[in-house]
């Protein structure tokens, strides 16, 4: 069984009655292991304000085959940089979400907390900056807009190439709403 789990969860095919389409408990279960004493998890949710505008919901567009390959490649980079045993879970929503819905889950399990924090931070920053995913916000006035994003034209920046330098991961020129 693989130590890296990747998924795209299509909100249009998940039942509204199911407990949680993107489930933090499932992520914790996947990265749990008798070898591991440290687990870190990031849960990204839809919030009701962005850049001063009232948001009623968002839609995610994904290029699914490349998104899954990108998640897997991010996991393998995290593993090679951690240099020891690790389990990593990356799942992202696709389609229409309401305020408070879970948009993304990244969880890392490792022997100790330091590697878990670093692997989790590395993976969520890389997902945001490298995965072919686009967010469209819907506003209370009926307007909608695609978020400004990170161009994939350039080769990956050095600042995002190592787990340890996560503090530089947002050190590029444009502003993010996250």
């Amino acid at each position, binding site marked *: 069984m693989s130590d890296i789990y990747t998924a795209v969860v299509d909100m249009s095919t998940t039942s509204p009655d199911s407990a949680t389409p993107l489930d933090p408990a499932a992520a914790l279960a996947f990265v749990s292991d008798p070898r591991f004493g440290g687990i870190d998890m990031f849960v*990204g949710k839809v919030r009701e304000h962005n850049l001063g505008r009232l948001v009623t919901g968002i839609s*995610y*567009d*994904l*290029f699914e*085959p*490349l998104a899954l*390959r990108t998640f897997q490649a991010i996991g393998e980079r995290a593993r090679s940089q951690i240099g020891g045993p690790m389990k990593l879970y990356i799942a*992202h929503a696709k389609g229409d979400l309401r305020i408070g819905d879970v*948009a*993304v889950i990244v969880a890392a399990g490792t022997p100790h907390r330091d590697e878990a924090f670093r692997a989790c931070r590395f993976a*969520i920053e890389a*997902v*945001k*900056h*490298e*995965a*072919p*995913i*686009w*967010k*469209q916000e819907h506003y209370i006035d009926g307007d909608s807009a*695609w*978020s*400004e*994003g*990170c*161009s*994939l*034209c350039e*080769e990956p920046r050095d600042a995002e190439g190592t787990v340890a330098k996560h503090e530089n991961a947002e050190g590029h020129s444009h502003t993010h709403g*996250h």
Partner: protein
Amino acid sequence: MKVRITLFGALRDADTRGFIELEAPDACTIGTLRDLLRDHLRENAPHISVNLVQRCAFASDDEILHNHRTLPESGQLAILPPVSGG
């Protein structure tokens, strides 16, 4: 060769079908295809900014294809605007 470019994000507004088809030379680079697409959009979807097209990446199902790469034999490509996941 006929090239089919699948649209995502803000570029979906360029064609409601979700893709654009262009005729390109057989040994065409991604850079040349980008120029062809820019000309096509200027004609058919003038509301799409030229700057956005310059900031988009082209990709196959497997990988990002930078400007020096040649078109995949399948003629199937995706165009990826700047990304905003998470």
